[in-house]
């Protein structure tokens, strides 16, 4: 999670094992909604932008159903923690840590993300 300045030509980048991976233009992210990105190794990441222009990235696959849909969930703030609610069965995931707010034993991978 990084604070991003509102400029149109910024690129969204993800921290992967072998360095920063450029995903797309920042302008493609609508505040409050997500998009899905495909990583070189086939994994999928859900990217979000909140109203304060902070960026988040978690694994796109909903661990409760197996479907790659977290990028299509609704986002929000719960006790100061940003979250996305799965569009299928509505479990909420902390966007910073990937932890499921409704079941502490479940979590999704979270990624470092920046706009540069």
């Amino acid at each position, binding site marked *: 999670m990084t604070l991003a300045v509102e400029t149109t030509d910024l690129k969204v980048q993800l921290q992967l094992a072998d360095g920063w991976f450029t*995903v*797309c233009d920042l302008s*493609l992210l*609508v*505040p*409050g*909604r997500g*998009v*899905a*990105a*495909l990583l070189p190794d*086939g994994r*999928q990441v859900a*990217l979000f932008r*909140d*109203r304060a222009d902070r960026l988040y990235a978690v*694994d796109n*696959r909903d*661990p*409760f*159903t*197996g*479907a*790659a*849909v977290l990028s*299509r*969930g*609704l*986002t*929000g*703030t*719960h*006790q100061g923690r*940003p979250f996305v*609610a799965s*569009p*299928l069965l*509505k*479990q*909420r995931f902390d966007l910073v840590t990937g932890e*499921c707010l*409704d*079941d502490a*034993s*479940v979590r*999704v*991978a979270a990624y470092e993300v920046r706009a540069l």
Partner: protein
Amino acid sequence: MTATPGATPTIVLVGHGMVGQRFLEALAERGLTATHRVVVLCEEPRPAYDRVQLTSYFSGRTPEDLSLTDREFIRDHGIELRLGDPAETIDREARTVTARSGLVVDYDVLVLATGSYPFVPPVPNKDATGCFVYRTIEDLLAIEEYARTRATTGAVVGGGLLGLEAAGALKGLGLDAHIVEFAPRLMPVQVDDGGGAALLRTIRDMGLTVHTGVGTQEIVTDDSGAVTGMKLSDGSELATDMVVFSAGVRPRDQLARDAGLTVGERGGIAVDEQCRTVRDPHVFAIGECALAADGRVYGLVAPGYEQAETAAATIAADEAAFTGADLSTKLKLLGVDVASFGDAHGTTENCLDVVYSDSRAGLYKKLVIGADGTLLGGILVGDAEAYGTLRALTGSVPPVSPESLVLPATAGSGAQLGPSALPDEAIICSCHNVSKGTIRGAVTEHRCTTVPEVKKCTRAGTGCGSCVKVLGQLVDAELEASGVEVDKGLCGCFSQTREELYETVLALRVTSYRELLDRHGREGARGGDGCEVCKPAVGSIIASLAPTIGASGYVLEGEQAALQDTNDHFLANLQRNGSYSVVPRIPGGEIAPEKLIVIGEIARDFGLYTKITGGQRIDMFGARVEQLPLIWARLVDAGFESGHAYGKSLRTVKSCVGSTWCRYGVQDSVRMAIDLELRYRGLRSPHKLKSAVSGCARECAEAQSKDFGVIATSNGWNLYVGGNGGATPRHADLLAQDLSDAELIRLIDRFLMFYIRTADRLERTSTWLERIPGGLEHVRDVVVHDSLGICDELEKLMRAHVAHYRDEWAETVNDPEKLARFVSFVNAPDTPDPVVSFVPERDQIKPDLPLLNIGLRPADDVLEGSAQR
């Protein structure tokens, strides 16, 4: 083989039904499972399940859903549960039980909870192929199989509680169902002639055929020995493909008889007030197999639970006694409320009846009042809303006149006597014997603040569930009384109800969610990102009012896009593997062949799975995100538009063919259905809206199960509101009769806008009607008599909606910027999501579900644990 006798004393339980399970829980609560070895011999192949809710199997509950046993409980308490291994003999002298498997268990205490078996009258051919009983999950599975493969007609012998449930189940399986009852009325034990008559009319209206006052003389079979009919005592013959016997139950006491224990004349293992058998202090009997000390065999679960508690207490050397139980019952049979309590049949000397009967509405309510004004009992058919309060008042003089307790609230003079009027000792939950005082204590002393907490703390409401409503009212009242403010706010972000937010948005012309949150949200939520509850709710309010407050009515415009649930955001319905389904609007269910062909071609070209919906249209499944705009473009080209199957908005207006084709039709129901669907299409509301128009009183369009339903009369139209199908069916209420076309539309305009204005989030019209103060009568006052003077405004809001309607699909396919969102991957727009994959089934596709299991899914135990929420 003999089980090793340990140093610890052994309790053997024979039978693992509802009462047996409750006995095990009582043992655990008293710490007896720690000090004793506990062995359970169970005949059925599955552990204890909820036999009371057995019929709900046919409405989709699985045997797993019905289970009352959690594996951890059995494991954690070291209980040896042996399924499919019933006890066969008891040697009381040696104190051993032998099971079918040959296992011999020594016991110090033996508890018989063998339950009962269905009584099958001794008629010829009673065991023919196609004859069933209705007692276990296995019986239901067998009935289902036979009904699906070999039967079109089914008869149930017995018109009691289970008989009616069985008949309803047969009807639900698509059979022409008959009920044969020997007594002159249905449910002869629970209700009197008046109640039986009300019940009979309602059940007949549901399409079941009832034969009362006739007995079954013989089952008729064909050459192969399969049922073809039955001969009745009035000389008639009823053709049927299957017979379900549900003519009562008898205690299962053979094991006890063989062991030389005393049984009653009409069966039942005789026990004392401690539930100990009268002949052997080491043996107990509980539940339906026991003949209690008061000389009765109790066939209800609540007394069985009480016996289980008594036996466990006695084994723990505590004092307890079962001296008899209340036979009050409240049921929902085939959607009809039936309740009886106390001295329902008025057997007390000098007692008097107060009766309210409305045959048209299928209502019958009777109270039995003692000479001194004491409420002794009663019967409620069709509306058992007051059951919880009335049963608890039984034995006392009610604080208001008895007639006001049975008059419907809508009659104007009905008393709204809430549970606050009850004394503390009144029993609220009779399954677990929980008094009002205990429930209040849970709130005041144990600091419970919600119904689920109180349920957990007191067990109230965890049995049959009929008291949950009263429970909720009590918890709210107690919280308010103790100064805890009951938070009626929409969610953690807003302290206002949906209705209050609607008024705010309308009055202040708020067109932005952020503005609403930052100005009117809770302190801590302002400036934040809201949540998944309030965002769609506010999005819906803004969309409903869009033309009036000057917002864009297009749900993907600007900030609105971020508020929509995923279905609204993608204008399609998300399915389990991440693909979508697409439903074009087919107004009134009327479609020309050319358009049918277009749908077929599109489905074929995109490889979609097609299914006819219950709302008279066609659903196409399996579309990937990136295919949606391509599919819409072809549909829009062919003259289709969005069917809003994804939105909390008008879905469909079903119709029958009406007077144009049908020889019975009295009005053109298709034309009216099309007019209504086109008028209200796209209207965002607190929940989905369904409608139907029937061309005559035969009601083929099922309008009375809709949010607003219209039935033709020879003079015009009758308007029904608040109906529902689904999990909690509700028959719609008649709002107004014999309306002209214009009157009908004006009234629906007002009704819908009043609902949109005042309902809670995700509250269907059926629950809304039951919740709002004054109910139907209030709604009628407002929308028919304009008692609040708002009808002009309601009509104006609807006119604005109608004038500004635009098709969301067309708008989206014509907007390149919006189209860019319809990709699986932002960085690989041409790559489809590899998880969305399909395999063939019955000449179509279905999701490749095993594919979903690969990958980062957590271990199975994690899934199980989380699935229970």
